[in-house]
């Protein structure tokens, strides 16, 4: 395959990852934006989404499409429930103090990851894609399911965007983000908003995990890469800026895809990781951020 088609393949792959990354990172960005905490266990919610989907789909002998639909519905709900418990038992008790929360969410990372190892095992398991077709380009065939993933992720992103901008709930969340004390004075139940936002953030990561499972396999260690990439997106995009996060997700997702195909996945990760550190040191408001949304 010559360069052109190779590039097209890389861009297609990059776009799919970008959409999924955007969804995952949106969860992290929401949690940081509203609650002002960094959830180091965020990648584990992604992993839980994938693992629960694999477990659910394999539970009954259902045709792939139905098994997958079931997983897509139930898995994020379960992930959200786990997040709610974590918020209630741990984060709320710490009063969402930033440094303590990071250490506690590191602990949560270990608990979730190792529980899955104990209960699900160390093997990677795959799930059949609900729809199996290929789109035939002149130079190569591309999985139709991957494009559907991108489409679904895009739809969800728009739904969340709409929800934040247009609904009362979204307004409440944005008010809490801007000034939690003021919000409380206006009668907004800040604790409940925080719990909801944390669960929502986890569910977004969980959904992304479910979508990715037919493409990659579900494995107990799969949460680390999405975590680091989400950090990259949120920090480079500008902490607190959702629009910036989305733009960063696409740039990072696409370049990750391209560099992975043309050079090596490790190199892509090295560049992303270094970029995060340098942006945080020299341009703490991110490359696109500035005013919080």
């Amino acid at each position, binding site marked *: 395959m010559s360069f052109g088609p190779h590039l097209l393949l890389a861009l297609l792959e990059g776009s799919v990852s970008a959409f999924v990354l955007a969804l995952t990172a949106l969860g992290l960005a929401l949690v940081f934006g509203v609650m002002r905490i960094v959830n180091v266990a965020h990648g584990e919610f992604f992993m839980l989404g994938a693992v629960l989907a694999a477990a659910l789909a394999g539970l009954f002998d259902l045709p792939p499409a139905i098994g997958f639909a079931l997983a897509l519905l139930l898995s994020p709900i379960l992930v959200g429930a786990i997040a709610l418990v974590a918020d209630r038992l741990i984060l709320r008790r710490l009063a969402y103090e930033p440094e303590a929360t990071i*250490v*506690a969410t590191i602990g949560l990372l270990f608990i979730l990851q190792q529980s899955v190892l104990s*209960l699900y095992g160390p093997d990677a398991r795959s799930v059949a894609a609900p729809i199996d077709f290929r789109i035939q380009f002149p130079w190569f065939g591309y999985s139709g399911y991957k494009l559907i993933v991108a489409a679904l992720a895009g739809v969800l992103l728009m739904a969340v965007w709409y929800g934040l901008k247009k609904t009362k709930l979204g307004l409440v969340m944005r008010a809490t983000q801007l000034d939690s004390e003021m919000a409380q004075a206006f009668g907004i139940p800040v604790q409940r908003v925080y719990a909801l936002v944390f669960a929502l953030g986890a569910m977004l990561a969980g959904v992304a995990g479910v979508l990715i499972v037919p493409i990659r396999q579900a494995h107990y260690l799969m949460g680390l890469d999405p975590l680091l990439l989400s950090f990259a997106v949120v920090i480079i995009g500008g902490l607190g800026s959702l629009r910036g996060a989305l733009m960063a997700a696409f740039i990072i997702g696409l370049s990750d895809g391209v560099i992975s195909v043309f050079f090596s996945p490790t190199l892509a990760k*090295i560049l992303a*990781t270094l970029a995060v550190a340098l942006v945080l040191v020299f341009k703490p408001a991110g490359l696109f951020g500035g005013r919080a949304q």
Partner: protein
Amino acid sequence: MTGGKVQAMAKSSAGRVAVLHVGLIALMFLLQFVLPQYHHTNLARIMVLACYAIGYNLLLGYTGLLSLGHAMFFAVGLYATGLGVAQFGLDPLSGFLAGPLAGCALAVIVGLVALRTSGVAFMIVTLMFSQTGFLLILYFGDFTRGDEGFVVAEGLRRLAIGGMTIDLAAPAVRYNLALALFGACLFVSWAVLRSSIGRVFVAIRENEERTRLLGYDTWRYKLLALALSGTMSGAAGGAYALLFAYVGATFASIQYSIYPLLWVLLGGAGTTLGPFLGTLLMFYLIDIASGLLPGYLIVVGAVLILLTLWFPKGIVGSLRARWLTWLP
């Protein structure tokens, strides 16, 4: 109050401190003669890792900076010594010295950049730099053997001193060298705490702005703290390569950045004996758990959460706060 009374108070407290620390070293020395082989090796390993923890404590406990990337300092020492001896033909002594030197150099370089941030940002920046280091080890896998790692051959781990050959692989030698390093690090941490520099470190932790307005350039002190911490962590890494012979990328992973945080928090941040106690306890906790279930590192998570929720001061820290206020 007269100078005499001051002297008297200081002396009695200093006396107890000295007895406690020397006593611990003496106890560790004597234990080697009664321990079965399994625990003998464990303790040697624990003592080397405790040096890593003591180095971490210099930063977290004294200066108040929480790093999530210390594995890079341990690993740079590990690889500097390991590669130095295995690839570049260094003798064990020079090889070992490469460890703390590399740790110091890396700490200064990282500090020049990372110390422009603080708090949560500092945590993430150190995490990212360390992860970059880990990935670089994998990327240059042809040279470093990446994830698989390599063993420093026994033949290379022989120290020739004045006609005698000391075999570093011999359990007795290994234990006592580990003890010597541990004793040295313990002494350094205590000495720093007592010094003028240590006083400034603690002041920075308590109230950095006030410290600046008392005339201290706090950035320089933070860089110094990071350099000391990196040197000690690198020394631990170098010793680990020589005494336990295995060099691998795992030691540069996030897991090995979380461990010293865990050990220091458990034992008590800002105490001299806390890091060792935390390392000891967690080692055996993990050891016991590994026999019980596949996901045994869950104890790491559980302990971290328990500590943040209920015991932020750790064991020695809580002892010091409640009863034994003279503990350093």
